[in-house]
């Protein structure tokens, strides 16, 4: 690459890393002969910064609402300065956002549940676009390959389900094991708190246990176990062989 071209990219790189009046001035100083109107050049600074913000706003709508407009903008602005866009797929900028939020909770006075909510919203998207495609048909009861399990100190699932109502109050504190997976036919993310029935059916799928094995070992009625398996395979948490 010619030095003049490297100089061009270096100068654009400094400007686009932190678009603003000062960096724009420095960009023009680096190219004294340049006559392009600065109002046109700054369009690119605004665009580049806007792409990260737009992606985060699509990925984290609940978190954005929960922290409030001003805190949200400051959070996004500072996260953007960490240059999160290291992947060609724009939504990947959200991958590191929950960790950034977790580091920022106390210094910015964010609600204590913000990191868990951020992680939940990222997982919701990650499951939706997971590249683990469900095999069809399966030979035996199989856990949904897109399944993600989140251990969190807030009751996020119930709060997300009831969003819109009582949104002024955040999720209640309390340990929760959240299950998120993509429905194999509808291809949308499903989520629920891990119930004893869900954990049992997942264990059956992972360990290859039959309903009668489980009935014998636990004394639970076999019909109840079969009913749970049928329901959770309709919901796609597990994949069942064709009857």
């Amino acid at each position, binding site marked *: *690459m*010619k030095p*003049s*071209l*490297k100089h*061009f*990219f270096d100068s*654009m*790189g400094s400007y*686009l*890393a932190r678009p603003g009046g000062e960096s724009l001035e420095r960009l023009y100083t680096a*190219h004294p*002969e*340049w006559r*392009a*109107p600065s*109002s*046109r*050049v700054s*369009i*690119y600074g605004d*665009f*580049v910064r806007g*792409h*990260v913000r737009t*992606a985060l706003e699509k990925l984290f709508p609940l978190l954005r609402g929960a922290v409030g407009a001003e805190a949200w903008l400051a959070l996004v602005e500072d996260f953007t300065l960490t*240059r999160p*866009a*290291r*992947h*060609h*797929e*724009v*939504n*990947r900028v959200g991958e590191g956002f929950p960790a950034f939020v977790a580091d920022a909770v106390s210094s910015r006075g964010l609600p204590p549940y913000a990191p868990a909510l951020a992680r939940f919203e990222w997982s919701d998207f990650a499951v*939706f*676009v*997971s*590249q*683990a*495609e469900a095999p069809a048909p399966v030979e035996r009861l199989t856990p949904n390959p897109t399944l993600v399990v989140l251990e969190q100190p807030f009751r996020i699932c119930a709060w997300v389900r009831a969003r819109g109502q009582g949104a002024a109050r955040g999720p209640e504190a309390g340990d929760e094991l959240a299950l998120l997976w*993509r429905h194999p036919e509808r*291809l949308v993310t499903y989520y629920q708190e891990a119930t004893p029935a869900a954990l049992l059916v997942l264990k059956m799928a992972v360990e290859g246990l039959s309903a009668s094995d489980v009935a014998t070992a636990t004394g639970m009625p076999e019909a109840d176990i079969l009913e749970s398996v049928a329901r959770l395979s309709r919901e796609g948490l597990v994949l069942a062989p064709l009857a």
Partner: protein
Amino acid sequence: MVATTYARRHGLSPLGVGIGLRRSFYEELPRTQRTLDWVEIIPENFLSLGGRSQRALDACAERWPVLPHGVGLDIGGPDALDEDYVTGLAALVKRVDAPFFSDHLCYSRLGGVYLHDLLPLPFTEAVVEHVVPRVREVVARVGRPFLLENPSYYANMPGGTLSEADFLRHVVEEADCGLLLDVNNVYVNARNHGYDARSFVDALPLERVVQIHLAGHTTYPDVIIDTHGDRVCDDVWSLYRYVLARTGPVSTLIEWDQDIPSMAAVLDEADLARAALREGAGR
């Protein structure tokens, strides 16, 4: 009329009119009863995302030719080509058996960070020299004909020594690739930079045009932004006819990516383009 030599050399014939497989069309497009000749995809939406996007892609690929049109190749940028991206792109092109693929003559990545924008390059010999081997590398790795699109730009970048048309010509001729002529970009650039759109078209290597883009834009008091957020305007339709009169029929895409009123509205625009193609052919 110029012989479309690049297309002919590569055995590419005009495919008619296509629209983009956008997220909001994933359910509706594969089932449409409307006339559609081909479908464009943004590879970035399919390379690392599973689920709905893959189902929609497979369903479309069963019905129509699919042409990948990238935004992240970064053909003009200072970073080495993204291994992961180029490998994935090559696999995707083969998977949908695309007759050709395309991206923009711009840069979109600096220091390993994707800027998720199509950023303009200075119109210089140094850039031509930098871009040409990169195009050749991509073509060698993907193994199909490749087109570069003329991007829209709102400011001339510093140090330019070539005219925009000469810059485009040098790159596509020296790299021996095709040209994806975005007619709306020509219109937007001509208005934003005060030049004549038709003279610009006349100065292009039209024998390399293998695909055309048509789109809408947004007019502000001091600049026109290439938003892909509206119908194609009358001036762009007439510039399209002007181009077709010189190139003959060319595969044409309606780009509508923002404020999409409905898929039917996009297909209505595609019908208009198809009528213009027929009208051109009947001349």
